């Protein structure tokens, strides 16, 4: 009997999710043993045409990491959707937009201006910026066209499951992969469409062992400004911690290492907008009823949108900044 086929793809991603898959150690052998890997640009030399030649739904499982910000990302997302029985958004980029999604604070032109012209380390006297079409003697050279707005995978194609995290933690990847192998091997039923795999629906605070009491803050501080008490909730110490607005699943990794949660596991299912949820949580720890003092405390947060939406701007209700 032929093996079920597996594809792994990276769109607008950092490569970390691919590494996270390789990072499951000897479990990767089970994956290679059970699946026939038919496409995985980071690890094997397959071409897009290999995928184009496949029959529809020929791939059993596709783990798709990276967000969608150019024509190539979009084209391959559509292609893999067509060819896959199960398409899984893998990691925060595919699920919520993540760090590449912070491009939604700007647009293509301002990003190009900075990256190719204004950035202090750039020397570009001829003002060369990438062109999606360049006519040369032999014909027209094309490269993918970058868009103004970064999208999540689920916004551009139909997605079956989501595995959150930047990147998903290896123990969670192992758990998910083992479950999927068990399901396919033994003809069990797949989880309902739309399920979140490799996480729970509680908040990161639920997994955090720090002691919580009353949160009363007169000034927010950044992590390098104080040496935080190792046992007390970081929010109570004035460090903005995304725990209350973030789905549990990582085992509260960052908070147990003394740094605040940045929110990479995304929002819980009862929340529509992770940043808005966090904005409300921030307001609730402010210790004042004097409008001027409240304003001053709020002004002590250097980058509210970047803090609240570090991993989820494209998934927010407003999707992007109006520029």
């Amino acid at each position, binding site marked *: 009997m032929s093996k079920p086929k597996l594809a792994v793809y990276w769109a607008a991603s950092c490569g970390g999710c691919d590494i996270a898959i390789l990072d499951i150690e000897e479990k990767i052998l089970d994956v290679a043993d059970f699946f026939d890997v038919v496409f995985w640009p980071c690890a094997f030399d397959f071409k897009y045409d290999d995928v184009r030649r496949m029959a529809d739904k020929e791939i059993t499982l596709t783990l798709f990491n990276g967000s969608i910000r150019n024509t190539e990302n979009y084209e391959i997302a559509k292609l893999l959707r067509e060819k896959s029985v199960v398409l899984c958004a893998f990691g925060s980029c595919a699920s919520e937009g993540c760090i590449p999604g912070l491009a939604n604070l700007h647009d293509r032109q301002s990003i190009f201006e900075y990256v190719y012209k204004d950035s202090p380390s750039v020397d570009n006297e001829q003002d060369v910026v990438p062109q999606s079409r360049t*006519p040369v003697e032999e014909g027209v050279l094309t490269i993918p066209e970058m868009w103004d707005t970064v999208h999540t995978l689920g*916004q*551009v194609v139909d997605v079956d499951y989501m595995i959150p995290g930047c990147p998903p933690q290896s123990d969670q990847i192992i758990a998910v992969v083992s479950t999927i192998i068990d399901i396919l091997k033994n003809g069990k039923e797949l989880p309902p469409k739309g399920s979140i795999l490799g996480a729970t629906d509680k908040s990161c605070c639920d997994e955090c062992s720090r002691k919580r009491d009353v949160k009363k803050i007169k000034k927010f501080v950044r992590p390098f400004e104080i040496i935080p008490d190792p046992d007390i909730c970081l929010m109570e110490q004035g460090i903005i911690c995304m725990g209350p607005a973030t789905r549990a699943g990582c085992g509260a990794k960052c908070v147990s290492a003394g740094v605040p949660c940045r929110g990479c596991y995304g929002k819980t299912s009862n929340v529509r907008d992770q940043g*808005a949820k966090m904005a409300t949580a921030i*307001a609730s720890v402010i210790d004042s*009823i004097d409008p001027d003092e409240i304003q001053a405390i*709020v002004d002590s947060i250097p980058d509210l949108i970047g803090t609240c939406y570090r991993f989820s701007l494209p998934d927010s209700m407003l999707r992007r900044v109006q520029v």
Partner: protein
Amino acid sequence: MSFEPKIIGFLCNWCSYTGADLAGTARMKYPANLRAIRVMCSGRIEAGFILDAFRNGADAVLICGCHIGDCHYSEGNHKCLRRLPVIKKLVEQFGIDPERVRLEWVSASEGDRFRKIVTEYTEQIRKLGPLTLRDLDFEPPPEVEHDEVKPKEEVCHV
């Protein structure tokens, strides 16, 4: 056609909604631009409500609650007071004029004050113009043909 702003009003049940009701029963005239939504307390209003209103086409959001000291749940409006600067800062960073969010305290007997606020705010938003938000939904780009351009004698700097 002149621009008629759509303003979503979140009015607390115990004071402001009653105040608005009073304006109504006293047959005071104010612009019909306000769509009132009754909430139990101004402390119920979350940042998400405001973003959601904008997403769904509101040009502005007016939040009204009991005066400080008068909240039916004693401190709900303190919550609202603390949330507003956070919400406004967020809205501003989203590139939306923070004037499009406004908080006012209106008691049950202040029907006339409510009328004045709504009238004045409607004019203010009318001057600001409609709020248009881009890329709220993904629109597939037009398919590109790959080779329709004939080679030209242009130099490409690499």
